């Protein structure tokens, strides 16, 4: 692999505060190594800005290995960028070419209020979990872990849904800014396990209601969420959430 340094032309959304208008600002970043991650390129940009006495670009990031769900950049119109199943922190510059122009924006959704630059407030997702995304087992002495067998298939499917990292890319990708995939992934995870059964009905009703209250849109089957999801969570979760919801509301 070539280590020839590249120059990348960025157009980055800058906004000081929610109350102030934002705008795109162009930056040219020389010295980009193809082995760098996309966020390391932003580190480089920020070092260059700091050296010039300018204010660095704020962006959320933490683990930088695709599991904490902090990073949240729309890169050339795609949440987390062009590589499937990849969070922005795991996107490497070898997927770009010298001289490329790249547009970087924050997640945009009514339920994700702007904080600064590329940073938005995603606590609405926490509130959806607080509304029912749990099994109400208090810390104590539950039965032995092996007292209730769970079929491997169900357990594996539950895991597929539980893999959600809560980044909100599904919301950013959705034309309706719906949090359906996020919400459905948690409902699916817990509905597939026998431990989750007693609260199945109230869980789906409360979580779906909270999602609406937060101002997320409805799902109209565009499927953009699945394509943007860094953990490739299947949209089948949403179908399952709908069945769960109908069963809970209609009874049966």
């Amino acid at each position, binding site marked *: 692999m070539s280590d020839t340094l590249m120059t990348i032309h960025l157009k980055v959304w800058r906004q000081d505060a929610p109350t102030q208008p934002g705008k795109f600002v162009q930056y040219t970043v020389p010295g980009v190594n193809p082995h760098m991650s996309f966020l390391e390129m932003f*580190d480089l940009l920020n070092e260059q800005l700091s050296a010039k006495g300018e204010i660095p670009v704020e962006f959320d990031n933490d683990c930088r290995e695709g599991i904490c769900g902090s990073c949240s950049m729309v890169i050339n119109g795609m949440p987390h960028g062009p590589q499937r199943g990849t969070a922005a922190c795991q996107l490497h510059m070898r997927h770009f070419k010298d001289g490329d122009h790249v547009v970087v924006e924050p997640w945009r959704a009514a339920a994700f209020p702007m904080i600064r630059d590329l940073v938005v407030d995603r606590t609405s997702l926490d509130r959806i979990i607080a509304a029912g995304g749990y099994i109400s087992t208090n810390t104590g002495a539950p039965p032995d872990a092996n007292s209730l*067998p769970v*079929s491997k298939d169900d357990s594996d499917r539950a*895991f597929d849904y*539980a893999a959600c990292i809560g980044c909100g890319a599904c919301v950013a990708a959705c034309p309706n800014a719906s949090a359906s995939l996020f919400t459905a992934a948690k409902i699916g995870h817990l509905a597939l396990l026998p431990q989750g059964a007693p609260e199945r009905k109230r869980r789906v009703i409360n979580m779906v209601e909270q999602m609406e209250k937060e101002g997320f849109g409805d799902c109209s089957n565009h499927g953009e969420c699945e394509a943007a999801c860094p953990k490739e969570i299947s949209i089948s979760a949403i179908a399952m959430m709908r069945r769960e919801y109908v069963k809970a509301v209609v009874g049966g």
Partner: protein
Amino acid sequence: MSQTPTHPKLDAKIPSGHISEKWTNFKSTAKLVNPNNKRKHTIIVVGTGLAGGSAAASLAELGYNVKAFCVQDSGRRAHSIAAQGGINAAKNYPNDGDSIWRLFYDTVKGGDYRAREGNVYRLAQISNNIIDQCVAQGVPFAREYSGLLANRSFGGAQVSRTFYARGQTGQQLLLGAYQAMEKMVGAGKIQMYARHEMLDLVVVDGKARGIIVRDLVTGEIERHAADAVLLCTGGYGNVYYLSTNAKNSNVTAAWRCFKRGAFFANPCFTQIHPTCIPVSGDYQSKLTLMSESLRNDGRVWVPKNIGDKRSPEQIPEAERDYYLERKYPSFGNLVPRDVASRNAKEQADGGKGVGETGMAVYLDFADSIRRLGDSTISERYGNLFQMYEKITGDDPYKVPMRIYPAVHYTMGGLWVDYHLMSTIPGLFVLGEANFSDHGANRLGASALMQGLADGYFVIPYTLGNYIANNTFPKVDESSDAFAATEAEARGRIGQLLNVNGSRTVQDYHRSLGKVMWDYVGMGRTREGLQHAITEIGKMREEYWQNVKIPGSPDTMNKSLEFAGRVADFMELGELMARDALQREESCGGHFREEYQTEEGEAKRDDENFSFAAAWEYQGEGALPTMNKEPLTFEYVAPSQRSYK
């Protein structure tokens, strides 16, 4: 060596009785708080990883009012989320000879006899409750076709006691704790303060009674009062700049407590994890761990000949050195982390390292793929292989992985007694932030176990005992103690911003990291440590004259956040070097090159160093003093670790 601590505050408060009865004895005699009184007590929990999340949820369920703080934008993002491999428990489901005793024994031995027996035994006892609790919460652990839980052997264990959720065990356990916490947020028993950073501890009448925090969105400084403070802020591996820790992991909260009178124990005990993706260049911002479960099926090797730069498939079997299998026939690729790391360094230092930089060794899956097939390997390690390919561009199904050690975990931390209380009454320290259970080296899959043990099952009892045994005169947030501590925190921010120099925070952090890695890393010498102390001293001085922090204190400003953290890391780095210098022996992750056996293994000195070094702050400009808590081994007789 004397069996009494050199400082009266270092009473470990180990309960009486046989080791298997100590925890039961404590629980039977601990004082209880009346259910109706619990709601009258506010408890602050700083950090929402496995320790903090599980503590916040459990205490709120008991009825306490909990205020939980984290620097991330959500409690779910704490760095526990990134733990891959698994969590140990002494369930003995596979019927392969495991027991609480054996887990206890392995942990004490693995820690190279520098942990407290009483604490470790309790940890082993609690391990089984954790698995039950997590399964009840819906944590999707791996299962067999029978529907029962699957186990695997992990990092040097000769029994299969590790429970796992693909390569995302930390994520699933943390989500379990986070969901339990959110449940109590929904119930109004936890107030959650995300994007808040603890800047200082408020001590009133000798007790921890509150904290000063900065709202990382608005820059506002806030005061929060409570009856006890639980510090669950993780480890300090980022002192090395490059580590497997998340970017926001830092020592500031713990360091502030140190400066308020909490002793800092064994700071030099750091764990260098053997299986990380090697450094590729100067721009690198962090290192990525590849779970050591990979060593179950991967074989570590280097070329036999120095400077052999052929690609791996061109090197015939006879010209490969599977050095771990050769040197340690009974443990092979599964030797403990410190041994595996040191051996990789030895190969690279000897000119046999591979890859462009020569700072790597191979971890080869070809044999396992031949034996088990792609699909089995994919089921076990699919997401890890994918992660490796994303980062390096190489496909590990076809090309051996390149791995190298990286800083991963810190066994040192704030000193705590058996109750997890620091030397400041009312300040409890849980999880990686404390020092107690792993000694000089932590075994694989034991960090998750300890974080959850502390939060779910220890603190609900020991905190209750503290609350019931003390009185809590009302502390007002407008009182002088809060005002004075806040003024100091504001002063530090002002001082940093006023420097207005020319070098960025990141630049300093990189330089600090390099000194730490070179001189306080895998191999340490007297001269090197003295050199590090001098270098860091100079760097600290320069920092306060020449650091450049753009932006304002009244907005989100990551440069400012990191500036405070790096200032604290510099002070800690110096203390680590001092601690490593005084410990004239090699044990676990602490390898002093002067103290090794003829075969190059760590040589402990139990006669003189069987103690926890608890450092005490003596004021600005003065050297911290070292106190000793002697370690006694009644149940596991210290022996030279051998993995041959």
